[in-house]
């Protein structure tokens, strides 16, 4: 296999057919070859990665049982702390930050034998849907390099689609794992809120943020989630809910599975080709034995405004910590006193979208506007959760397109933030309701002669990743859409 999956690498390393070092060298060569065209990696730690791979090989040679991700190269979104590895969140304000600790997910992945190779580009502080908001330049979509890879985990999705690595981590606050996975033709899983510890994730919107994997197969995503999930004393919102055997859940059998389709919600504002791909995906599910049931999510159309009020409010609070004192950038204007240090460091360190969101969040939390905007949005959030609870009485998973539009051109939406926000319509509600959701490769549309991937999204009940993964895996087995972009990038 030219581009082995994480599962295949793990099996080969465990059986001694290949060394973790060989796998690592191969990944490093692929990263180096494709990065000038994609800008998917902000940092490649070649030496450190080889050292980590050597340790995996040494453990195997010493007779220790190989971990479930033994020797698997993994890329980490640059808003996750890796000890000793520069972590910038793609922001000038953290350009020099070197975390003194590992995120909990990093400790767990390394314990499972994964080999961290570097940090991937993203929208600044994960704020964006196109990866154009990086202080270190946009990422390009491996399927069509004039287009965006989506965002905010665009570097991670592009790296997997270009076979630089078989596995990457992203974070998903309003779709930031699923939408780039959709745009890049790979698998992206947002776990249930609380399934994975957020310790070591640079906070954007704490009630919505969740870390998850990007991979080429549903099985690889399940392997990664299994390694990362579980309670953590460092994150009080991490859940003690037991994790079932997610690999055993991938039976390929979805006979009798009830797939809910919110037809009213997905009928408007969806690109005709994306809608056709979605309808075809539903037919595949039906042919595999699932039954389609109509569900209503009457408050889902309010998801985007509710989301952008809640997430910006939380962001304005979370990003108050960047003040030129504790880490990162301090403006030379700080010579003019403490107040100048705060305002100038923040004004020179943050990019336009981050400032816009801090401004919006500050406004909606300010006196006189709190009830009308922030409180109202949180009430609508309750109504949306209730919609899902009702829908899940009739359905086991709910199907939607991941994005209403195919990958768009770099620069196409950059001047109109509201238009960019509207494209998050199908992803934000899973975050607002705290539900697990996956985007799997769902076919292609043609634009300017290029084949562009579109994603098929499945959302599940709280903590029911097993059913979401089983459904996504069955769909992937039935379709086997290619997950590696063609061309010279591989």
């Amino acid at each position: 296999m030219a581009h082995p999956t994480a599962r295949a690498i793990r099996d080969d390393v465990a059986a001694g057919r290949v060394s973790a070092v060989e796998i690592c060298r191969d990944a490093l060569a692929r990263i180096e070859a494709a990065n000038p065209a994609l800008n998917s990696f902000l940092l490649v730690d070649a030496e450190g990665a080889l050292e980590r791979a050597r340790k995996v090989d040494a453990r195997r040679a010493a007779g220790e049982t190989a971990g479930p991700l033994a020797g698997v190269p993994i890329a980490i979104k640059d808003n996750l702390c890796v000890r000793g590895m520069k972590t910038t969140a793609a922001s000038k304000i953290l350009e020099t930050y070197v975390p003194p600790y590992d995120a909990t997910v990093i400790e767990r992945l390394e314990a499972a034998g994964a080999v961290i190779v570097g940090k991937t580009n993203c929208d600044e502080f994960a704020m964006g849907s196109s990866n154009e908001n990086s202080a270190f330049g946009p990422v390009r979509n491996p399927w069509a390099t004039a287009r965006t890879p989506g965002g905010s985990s665009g570097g991670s999705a592009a790296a997997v689609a270009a076979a630089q690595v078989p596995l990457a981590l992203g974070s998903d606050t309003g779709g930031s794992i699923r939408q780039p996975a959709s745009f890049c033709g790979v698998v992206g899983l947002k776990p249930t809120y609380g399934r994975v510890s957020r310790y070591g994730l640079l906070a954007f919107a704490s009630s919505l943020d969740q870390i998850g994997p990007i991979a080429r197969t549903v099985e690889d995503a399940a392997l990664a989630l299994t390694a990362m999930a579980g309670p953590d004393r460092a994150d009080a919102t991490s859940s003690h809910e037991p994790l079932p055997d997610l690999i055993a859940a991938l039976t390929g059998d979805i006979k009798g599975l009830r797939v809910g389709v919110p037809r009213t919600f997905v009928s408007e504002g969806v690109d005709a080709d994306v809608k056709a791909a979605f309808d075809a995906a539903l037919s595949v599910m039906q042919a595999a034995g699932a039954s389609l049931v109509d569900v209503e999510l009457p408050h889902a159309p309010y998801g985007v405004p509710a989301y952008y009020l809640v997430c910006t409010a939380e962001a304005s609070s979370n990003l108050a910590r960047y003040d030129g004192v504790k880490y990162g950038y301090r403006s030379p204007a700080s010579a003019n006193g403490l107040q100048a240090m705060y305002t100038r460091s923040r004004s020179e360190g943050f990019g336009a979208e981050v400032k816009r969101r801090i401004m919006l969040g500050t406004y909606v939390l300010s006196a006189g506007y709190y009830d009308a905007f922030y409180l109202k949005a949180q009430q609508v959030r309750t109504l949306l959760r209730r919609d899902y609870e009702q829908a899940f009485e009739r359905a086991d998973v709910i199907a939607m397109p991941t994005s209403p539009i195919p990958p768009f051109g770099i620069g196409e939406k950059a001047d109109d933030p509201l238009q960019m926000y509207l494209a998050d319509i199908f992803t934000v509600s899973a975050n607002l309701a705290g539900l697990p959701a996956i985007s799997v490769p769902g076919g292609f549309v043609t634009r300017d002669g290029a084949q562009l991937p579109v994603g098929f999204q499945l959302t599940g009940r709280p903590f029911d990743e097993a059913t979401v993964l089983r459904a996504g895996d069955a769909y992937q087995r039935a379709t086997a859409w290619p997950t590696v972009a063609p061309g010279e990038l591989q």
Partner: protein
Amino acid sequence: MSALTIADVERIAALAHLDLTGDEKTRFARQLADILDYAQQLQAVNTEGVPATAHVHAAAGAERDDAPRPSLTPQQAVANAPDANLDAGLFRVPRVIGG
């Protein structure tokens, strides 16, 4: 309807410790008004008696034993500061009083 004046933008920026250029003020006044106008549609939703969801987790706020554990040293904690006294483990900031 949610027209934002430059003065509004300046007031929010001051609350957020941001110092905006003239161009940024004009642009944000327009863009934030667009977004707030769009958000006005939430007013059409009947939320009477509906509790707010601040957090999806019923079990949030789990407690743990208040026991000391190893953590960063003062030197590690200030190592990323743009200006610090590493030996003392202190952040250094511009003079606040009597400058």
